[in-house]
């Protein structure tokens, strides 16, 4: 608690200063994820760094790109001052989940709190449960939740079907999206977009109107128009698949976008494109949860927090400095701390 306050009171603090305290207090590390502590803390971050500011200015120019003009968020966009406190978006408490088939426990009590406008990154070794966590959030049938709770925008996510979670504003970009032969990309996007319009009580868009809506979005992910006529993910390269996921995010919009290893299998240029697109979609209202192995993504999409996952739990939370230690000394350095 004290550490946190100290941290928040020194905005221009040198990057390394909070770190030693984090490393020196392993017993406190779990405290960082205790939800009850959060409200005291979030105030500290709006002025965290110059990058955050950058993000906000990008936001201003791209705000119109957010998909459906959601009646929930748009009226609030008006008073964009510093005064309204960020709202709680996602609250995960002691989440436990098993593989549906084998009943093997993968998540062993995950705690996480995400507020509007925050960017979180989850890092961890292979098999630590990062991807499982993201799949459980969106309701993947391969996993069964055995304990804990997930509250998203005040509603119990666990009561909702996967499509309801999506319509509620949760989006996950798949690590390896499946091919769907015979369904064209534009038809797929049209269906998904219309599902949202229906939910909002808006008239659905026909193929021609939708084409007009979607064409400008393609520039965002640097894709050619022919991309729309190809079958969903069929014969796509790794990079094209990831771009396609981001295109879907751009078209559908999301309050919380979960990017599951969006950087794997991408070359430097493609990574830049994807990162640029994601940054362009960020606003003060929506949040991102990134799952990644690599710090290079975090250099392009700046996280507010980094969480380290190990054996189905979040064992450490901090800022970008954690990633720097990781890069230098690996997970051992974190675990040993």
């Amino acid at each position, binding site marked *: 608690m004290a550490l946190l306050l100290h941290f928040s009171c020194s905005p221009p603090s040198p990057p390394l200063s909070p770190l030693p305290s984090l490393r020196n207090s392993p017993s406190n590390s779990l405290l960082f994820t205790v939800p009850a502590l959060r409200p005291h803390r979030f105030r500290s971050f709006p002025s965290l760094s110059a990058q955050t500011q950058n993000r906000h200015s990008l936001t201003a120019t791209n705000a119109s790109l957010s998909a459906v003009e959601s009646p929930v968020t748009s009226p609030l966009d008006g008073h964009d001052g510093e005064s309204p406190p960020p709202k709680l978006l996602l609250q995960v408490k002691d989440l436990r989940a098993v593989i549906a088939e084998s009943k093997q426990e993968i998540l062993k009590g995950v705690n996480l709190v995400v507020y509007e406008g925050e960017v979180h990154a989850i890092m961890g070794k292979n098999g630590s449960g990062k991807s499982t966590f993201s799949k459980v959030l969106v309701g993947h049938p391969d996993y069964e939740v055995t304990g804990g709770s997930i509250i998203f925008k005040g509603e119990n996510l666990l009561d909702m*079907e996967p*499509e309801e979670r999506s319509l509620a504003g949760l989006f996950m970009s798949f690590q390896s999206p*499946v091919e*769907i032969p*015979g369904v064209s990309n534009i*038809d797929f996007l049209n269906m998904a977009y219309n599902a949202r319009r229906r939910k909002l009580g808006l008239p659905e868009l026909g193929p021609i109107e939708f084409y007009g809506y979607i064409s400008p979005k393609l520039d965002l992910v640097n894709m050619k128009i022919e991309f729309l006529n190809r079958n969903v993910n069929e014969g796509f390269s790794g990079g094209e698949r990831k771009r396609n996921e981001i295109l879907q995010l751009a078209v559908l919009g999301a309050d919380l976008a979960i990017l599951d290893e969006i950087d794997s299998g991408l070359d430097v240029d493609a990574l830049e494109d994807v990162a640029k697109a994601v940054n362009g979609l960020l606003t003060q209202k929506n949040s991102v949860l990134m799952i990644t192995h690599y710090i290079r993504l975090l250099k392009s999409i700046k996280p507010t927090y980094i969480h380290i996952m190990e054996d189905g739990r979040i064992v450490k939370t901090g800022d970008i400095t954690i990633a720097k230690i990781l890069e230098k000394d690996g997970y051992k350095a974190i675990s040993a701390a």
Partner: protein
Amino acid sequence: MAASILSPHLHITSTPVTLPTRPSVRPKSRVSIRTSSTPHASLSDPFVLQLAETLEDSLPSSSASPPPPPLQKLRDTSSQSLISTPWPSRKDEPFRFTDTSFIKHSQILPISHPPTLSGISTDTQLPNLVIIDGHLVYFSNLSELPDGVYAGSLSSLSSESIMERVSEFVSDFEGDLFWSLNGVGTPDLVLVYVPAGCRVEKPLHLRYYSVESGDVGSEKLPISNPRVLVLVEKGGEIGIIEEYVSEDDNKCYWANSVTEVVIGEGGKVSHSYIQSQSSSAAHIKWTSVRQESTSTYELIEISTGGKLSRHNVHVQQVGPDTVTELSTFHLSVSDQTQDLHSRLVLDYPRGYSRQLHKCIVAHSLGQAVFDGNVKVNRYAQQTDAGQLTRSLLLEPRATVNVKPNLQIIADDVKCSHGAAISDLEENQLFYFQARGIDLETARKALIFSFGAEVIQRMPYPFFRKKVENHIKELLEPKLKGS
């Protein structure tokens, strides 16, 4: 010749393997069938003889003008083979999964009077022929065909040289009982002739109607026997669309159809075959193709109609470097059987073939059958043959019987085959859901997309759209609330 030498290795006993040799008995006149208590009796099936006899009697009297020689020859050879061909039973390998007793137990009626054209829409821009109950009764826009192309009945053909070419190929192949019944019962032959080097730009549209029909429950089953020969000379090209149209879904009839395709060296035939007859009808179809060197044959089949629908495809390669592509989509939405028996025989080097068979069975009493045989004989080196069959079963107890089989004797070939039978893919469904699309919509989209892979191969956008809409109409009620 190679085939006959090698046949002992092939382990095919009950299938009528295509061999150039005919049984030693010479063709006899139709009289021999009537006096069927002859020495052949031990092999004869009285029911078949009776049926053949009825069909012969129903033919228009030949006293006025004798049938053209190829037609007479066809009738003779067909009569001959019927003498020794029994009605197929489930014990015969080619009919192991296909029950034809529904036809046998109906009252099969020949159609003797050529029908009239009332109520048949004639609004098509394409050169087209309308075949009603096996009779060619109408054609239009044929002037759009290039000079030298003939599309019409054999009886009306005046060119002797073409008649001679037809004689060379008629009854060159031995099919099964239904093939021969068609040969006996067909009132005339519809001939499509494309001279050497002639590329026909617009496809020729053949529309088949069955007008004579019985009501459901009446057990009456009028039989029609349309027969078409497409003869494309060296370097010629044509697109053929065969469309079997349903006027009323509650009518019972039996279309027993044969199409023969002969493609000369370097020629190309693109063949679309759309079968949407009444779901109370029997539809038996033969497609026999003969491919000379460097020729191309493409078949796109979409079959959705018939209570019993069976398509027999036989492609015989008679020269090297041929290209053969067979794509089929079958849909059973009621208690219907959709059956494809295909056989591709490669005897020459460097043949290329691809076959895709997809079927959806969306009814608990529905059935799909696929027997796809590819024979790569000794001299067919460097053959590249691929075959894939995928079935989607949407209801409990829906049945599919697939038997993809490659028989390879040549030793330097590239062959692949695969078979998959499944419900919809879970991970594909989840992908839709994760984007906010509900399960029902997702299922629908995936089911349509399953057939789309074949439908998208149809070369004519107008027909593609038409077929897509038809499939949607058929599937829509099946998907409600599933």
